């Protein structure tokens, strides 16, 4: 009898627990900054991107876990052989959050807005391989053809970033197709998103998604306070956790932290190779020498950077692509070993000589240069200090200067009044096309020597050619071959000295069910419509 009662109680508890978990509640986490816009086409900062991801409905979605493209608002799609035309078959019976029906008109409207040259949409620019108008042809209320003036590599994947806006709704920014909609916004303080009652997705049992009722996003730039609030139970997840906080949390609550492995992001150092830069000629000569750059790379102890700065939560970088990007990473590449002797040997090829613990160039000038990085990023500051010591061992004096971000941008992109710099690259996309503006010598973001009228070196000309080649091809094997060559050239010439790839670290409260942190952004809430939060009743 007692056993029957116990089983019954347990069953009731489990059922109640499941249904409590599935009836949803509030998910809480922090934004590091104030969102700059709620227009999904103008999103360029992390906070706005978070809001777009949670509220925007897209035609196709790259599953952050499997990295495969899946249908969303488009039930199917077809890409033409030349990569210029994409045809979408849209789902029927879908409505915006304000009740207006979703149709091909909305897709046409969104594409038109996105590709409007006057809008300068970052999302639209990702599609812009050449100038020219993009046309849309609505074949039926649920079928649309979008034609681009030139082939766009990975065209279908790019639509993962395009949140469809309503063509007919009076309040376009507020009418959304995603799982949540903006309910309240207190500038400087917080945002409240509530579930979209018209969200089209259901689970296998026919329950409407999302499971959660609301999401509260607090604006909190300070990581210490974020961690404190997470420990207190005031927050449910920390989407991007710093390595030192990871270890601190892991020591007390190991079940709450997640290390998804090396991310796609990289930290790198480079030297100023701009011809007109206001730096002494003899220094410019150093920085333009491949032997010099390779020597510096060999003199840096990447193992220590990973172990000491990131507490082991980083991997030595082998090149421009993280090893986590399994398809595009050139498997033949290895990180430069730490070898001060080899570094000195390489420097000697250029006439450098170490005397009395100081390295001199062929003209007798002591080798001394500065490295700038952005203040406030303690990991970069620490990396710069470790590198300072590493290079001191081969006789090079390094001055570390931390600058506020606008001053740093001014130096690396306008005045070119700097010598060395350490920054990072945030890669949201697996496809190397996303880095086109880094590798093309004519680009503004070709950091070491931007906006060249013509490539100043043969290897940069070669990279230009290979990048254009892979961008215009649709054969993954051909693209991979071309980009593998780009990676080899980059490692050989070292315009960027790649340091480490940081791990994707996050923290998830035990009350959150269904979270599967991954390396692609957003790491923890990529499957937000499936997340649940165990209520206090069930926990009892």
């Amino acid at each position, binding site marked *: 009898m007692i056993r029957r009662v116990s089983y019954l109680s347990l069953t009731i508890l489990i059922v109640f627990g499941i249904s409590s978990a599935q009836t949803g509640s509030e998910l809480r986490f922090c934004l590091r900054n104030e969102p*700059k816009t709620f227009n999904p086409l103008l999103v360029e900062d992390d906070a706005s991107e978070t809001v777009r991801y949670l509220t925007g409905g897209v035609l196709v979605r790259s599953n952050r876990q499997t990295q495969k493209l899946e249908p969303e608002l488009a039930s199917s799609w077809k890409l033409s052989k030349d990569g210029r035309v994409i045809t979408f078959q849209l789902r029927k019976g879908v409505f915006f959050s304000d009740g207006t029906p979703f149709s091909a008109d909305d897709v046409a409207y969104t594409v038109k807005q996105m590709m409007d040259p006057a809008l300068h949409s970052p999302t639209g620019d990702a599609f812009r391989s050449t100038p020219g108008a993009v046309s849309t042809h609505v074949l039926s209320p649920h079928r649309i053809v979008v034609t681009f003036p030139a082939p766009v590599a990975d065209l279908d994947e790019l639509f993962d970033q395009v949140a469809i806006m309503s063509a007919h709704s009076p309040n376009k920014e507020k009418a959304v197709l995603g799982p949540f909609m903006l309910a309240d916004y207190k*500038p*400087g*303080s917080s945002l409240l998103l509530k579930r979209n009652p018209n969200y089209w997705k259901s689970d296998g049992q026919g329950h409407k998604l999302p499971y959660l009722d609301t999401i509260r996003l607090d604006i909190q*730039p300070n990581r210490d306070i974020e961690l*404190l609030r997470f420990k207190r139970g005031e927050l449910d997840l920390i989407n991007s956790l710093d390595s030192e906080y990871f270890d601190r949390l892991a020591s007390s609550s190991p079940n709450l932290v997640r290390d998804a492995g090396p991310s796609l992001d990289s930290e790198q150092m480079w030297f100023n190779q701009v011809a007109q830069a206001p730096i002494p000629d003899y220094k410019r000569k150093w920085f333009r020498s491949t032997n010099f750059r390779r020597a510096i790379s060999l003199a840096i102890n990447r193992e220590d950077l990973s172990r000491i700065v990131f507490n082991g939560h980083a991997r030595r970088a082998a090149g421009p692509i993280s090893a986590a990007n399994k398809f595009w990473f050139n498997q033949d590449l290895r990180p430069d070993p730490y070898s001060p002797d080899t570094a000195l040997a390489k420097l000697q090829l250029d006439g450098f000589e170490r005397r009395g613990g100081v390295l001199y160039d062929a003209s007798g000038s002591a080798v001394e240069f500065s490295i700038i990085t952005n203040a406030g990023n303690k990991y970069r500051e620490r990396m710069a200090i470790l590198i300072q010591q590493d290079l001191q061992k081969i006789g090079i004096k390094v001055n570390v200067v931390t600058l506020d971000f606008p001053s740093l941008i001014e130096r690396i992109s*306008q005045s070119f009044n700097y010598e060395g710099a350490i920054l990072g690259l945030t890669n949201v996309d697996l496809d190397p096309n996303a*880095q086109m503006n880094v590798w093309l010598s004519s*680009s503004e973001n070709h950091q070491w020597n931007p906006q060249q009228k013509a490539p100043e070196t043969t290897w940069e000309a070669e990279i230009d050619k290979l990048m254009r080649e892979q961008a215009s091809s649709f054969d993954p094997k051909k693209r991979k071959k071309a980009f593998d060559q780009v990676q080899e050239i980059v490692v050989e010439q070292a315009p960027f000295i790649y340091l480490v790839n940081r791990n994707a670290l996050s923290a998830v409260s035990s009350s959150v069910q269904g979270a599967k942190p991954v390396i692609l952004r957003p790491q923890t809430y990529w499957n937000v419509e499936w997340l649940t939060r165990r209520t206090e009743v069930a926990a009892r």
Partner: protein
Amino acid sequence: MLSRIIRHLLAIVAMVIFGGLACASLVRFASGFDTDEQQLDLRLSAESLQALHESHRSEKNLSQFYITYLKRALHGDLGVSHSLNQPVASLLRGRFPDTLRLMTMGLALGWAIGLGLAFSTALPRFSAYSFLGVALSGVLLCIPAAVLALLSVVVNAPAYLAVALIVFPKVFTYSRNLLAKAFSSPHIITARAKGLGTLRILLWHVLPVVAPSLLALAGVSVSIALGAAIPIEALCGLAGVGNLAWQAALGRDLPLLVNITVVVTLVTLLANSGADVLSHAMRGKQA
């Protein structure tokens, strides 16, 4: 008295306008002025980057910018913040009450503790508090404002407590020194020798002497509290003007910075002018 007030108000208006121009000049010629983080967005095409650079063109000509700003401000249009993409007027309107509340409570508490402890140094019964006050003010002066703000979050204390703890040591140190000096003046020694009570001496003979300096300190403490508000609001997640100022500074947001400077100049001038007027009124009464 009335003519003095009018003179003060006119001077305030002139200073505020000049303050805005001075701020605009400082920002305009600072490194990183016409840069934008968005420049590093790899998705942007050459045309979009060009448009980004052009978007700050209207701010490059300082005199043109400021004259346009003044003309619009007279009609209530304070411009648009390009770091937050919102009208400056609504930003300030929404955030100023929080900062005002934070500063008022912080100043009141800081003065209450600071002045209270400083007075106690003058009273023999409580002279032990002198050492406590010196030690406490010394300790608090050494703790960074950011740490005080973080502590207030950790212990769930109100943010104005952090402001109070920043204001208190300055108020205490100045007040204590002023009171000590006043107590050592000949007429006070005479009064004590003649058997006047401590409280009477303090209220009738010491306070009037130190009042002008204390009033000046009161005016200045408003600036101190405003300065403290910036890190405290940023760390405690308060949506105030201080938080806004920091974001604006990092983003070189000229329209927002000029307006914030105008507000800060106005508050500072009003506070200090108020102190001056009160001081003058007290002198008039004493005469």
